[in-house]
């Protein structure tokens, strides 16, 4: 075991609290009859998930989770519930309820068996001090621009003027995620941008008033 990757008790406790909240809210989402309430519980579940992200040293993902899911998606869902008066009196579960419970329980069992029976390669099994420093410590990088530079543990070294002591990528992930997005993953990144534009245009095209229909902006 490596001390650098040990999870503090407080964090562990907070993780269990956050997961309990998330799971409880998720169960409410799929069982509660009032769709608006379900949307609110969905937002609660999202917040719990973002707390889990924070505890997993993924601040950026956690904040993006709040920004996108709580700030946009769940609000949009609440908006549509408000607009569509039909759903206000509830959504009954369909007849396939027991079958669905069975299927999802089977999937959960499969996941659990797989998770606990796999021999994972863990960070705590790392022995290279440079690698450990790169992940959760402070390190010095030889050639910052190219990304090919050698990473060295900064604890025993006096950094020169041109070198910067950086926090390990798990300690301060935001900058690294940004660098990854515009370097290695630039193609998926651009594709996601295209997908979003396409979705936007598609949504607008779907909602455009058709010929002969009254303009939803009011008037006649």
């Amino acid at each position, binding site marked *: 075991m490596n001390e650098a990757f040990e999870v*503090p*008790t*407080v964090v562990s406790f907070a993780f269990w609290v956050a997961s309990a909240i998330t799971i409880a809210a998720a169960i409410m989402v799929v069982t509660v009859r*009032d769709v*608006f*309430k379900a949307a*609110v519980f969905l*937002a609660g579940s999202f917040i719990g998930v973002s707390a889990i992200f924070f505890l997993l*040293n993924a*601040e*950026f993902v956690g*904040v*993006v989770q*709040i*920004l996108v899911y*709580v*700030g*946009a998606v*769940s*609000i*949009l869902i*609440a*908006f549509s*519930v*408000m*607009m569509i008066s039909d759903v206000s009196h509830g959504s009954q579960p369909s007849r396939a309820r027991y079958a669905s419970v069975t299927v999802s329980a089977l999937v959960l069992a499969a996941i659990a068996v797989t998770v606990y029976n796999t021999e994972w390669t863990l960070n705590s099994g790392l022995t290279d001090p440079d690698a450990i420093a790169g992940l959760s410590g402070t390190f010095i990088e030889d050639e*910052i*621009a190219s990304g090919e530079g050698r990473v060295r543990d900064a604890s025993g070294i006096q950094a020169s*003027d*041109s070198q*910067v002591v950086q*926090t390990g990528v798990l*300690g*301060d992930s*935001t900058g690294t995620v940004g660098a990854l997005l515009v370097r290695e993953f630039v193609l998926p990144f651009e594709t996601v941008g295209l997908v979003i534009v396409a979705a936007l245009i598609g949504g607008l095209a779907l909602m455009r008033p058709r010929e002969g229909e009254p303009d939803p*902006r*009011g*008037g*006649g």
Partner: protein
Amino acid sequence: MSETILDSSLFRNVYCYVAGGSEGCVSHGYSEGFLPAGYEWLAFAITAAVLAILFIQGALGGVLALIWGERRILARFQNRVGPNRWGPFGSLTSVADAIKTMFKEDIVPDQADRFLFNLAPVIMVVPVLMVFAVIPIGVGTLVADLNIGLLFVIAITSASGLAIAMAAWSSANRIAIFSGLRAVALLVSYEIPMALSLLGVLMITGTLSMTGTIEAQDVPFIIVQPLGFLVFFLAALAEMSRTPFDLTEAESELAAGHLNDYSSMKFGVLFLAEWAATVAGAMIIATVFLSGWRGFSPIPSHIWFVGKVVAVIFLIIWIRATWPRLRIDQVLSLAWKGLFELTMINLIVTAILTAAMADREADGSLFSAGELWIMAAVNWAVFFPSVYLIGKLLASKPYEDDSSEPQELYPVATEEKAFEGAAD
């Protein structure tokens, strides 16, 4: 106890005062504290509680002061005196109001969804109070110097839309639901220009942390990023639903909007959250665009910060006293057709400038004051034509059909054409 949280000096000072001894504290001169070793979690909890109480009380005090100040200033704009009976210059009026609100009867409408109805004020107030944690109100005086501070602020404030929707829906009141629909459309629309306008600042500073943003401002960003400031200011006005974007609770049309069915302290909490949002918004504007606590040396940094926040709040109140409220379609078209384009122009110009001047790839250093002044000059040169252009575009009505009569919203009989509108 991650290093990030311990970095902020206020948190560290309190934490080390309580716990002492632990790593990260000894190097700052705290060798022993109250608690024995092994009780770090307790110290953590105590510190969190103490700071939370302190900051929440501070925020509430700020809100009460803001309510009083706004009433006084607004009264001066209208040649009145404003509240002046309770305390010196009426400064205890807000306290009296708060006490009165607490003792009112707590009414829940019969048809209301009690769970959501009671939850909405909480959801409304918590994010706003969380924002105060990341704002540096002086050198080293902040609870948590998050490395994602700005993004955190934008993300956490976006939850208020959900709270408004909850409050509106659970009231089972059509006026409140109108307000909720407006609020959601408005908040979601204005989040986009708000976040994008901060992107220009981020390009220059290269950090999301609030302290880093202040340290990068050798020249206040209101000068370097005029377009960014304009857009962010307007979007922030919309996000905290202030005039001229206060159509969430447009009192002449919607009575009080989503606040309609709330009473007693639940109303108080919702009201407080809204005003706290104003304080927080002014603080963020002061931090990001007015260089936060920076200033000349004899005056302490806290005073500088408070002065800048007061200036921003005065501007907000001034606007409230002057401009009329916009219609919902005007508000949305301003967001999508006006501010969005402006941020795009700002973004492109700033990107080009940053790429042209940046040599910080190697050492992560910031732009010098001279470089910032050059940027400011270019940005101001872009500012006027682009605002003029976008204003022209907004003012023109490309969709208007010349062949037909202008549509009337409600067909009414006038003397000239009796019931003509009703026929078609």
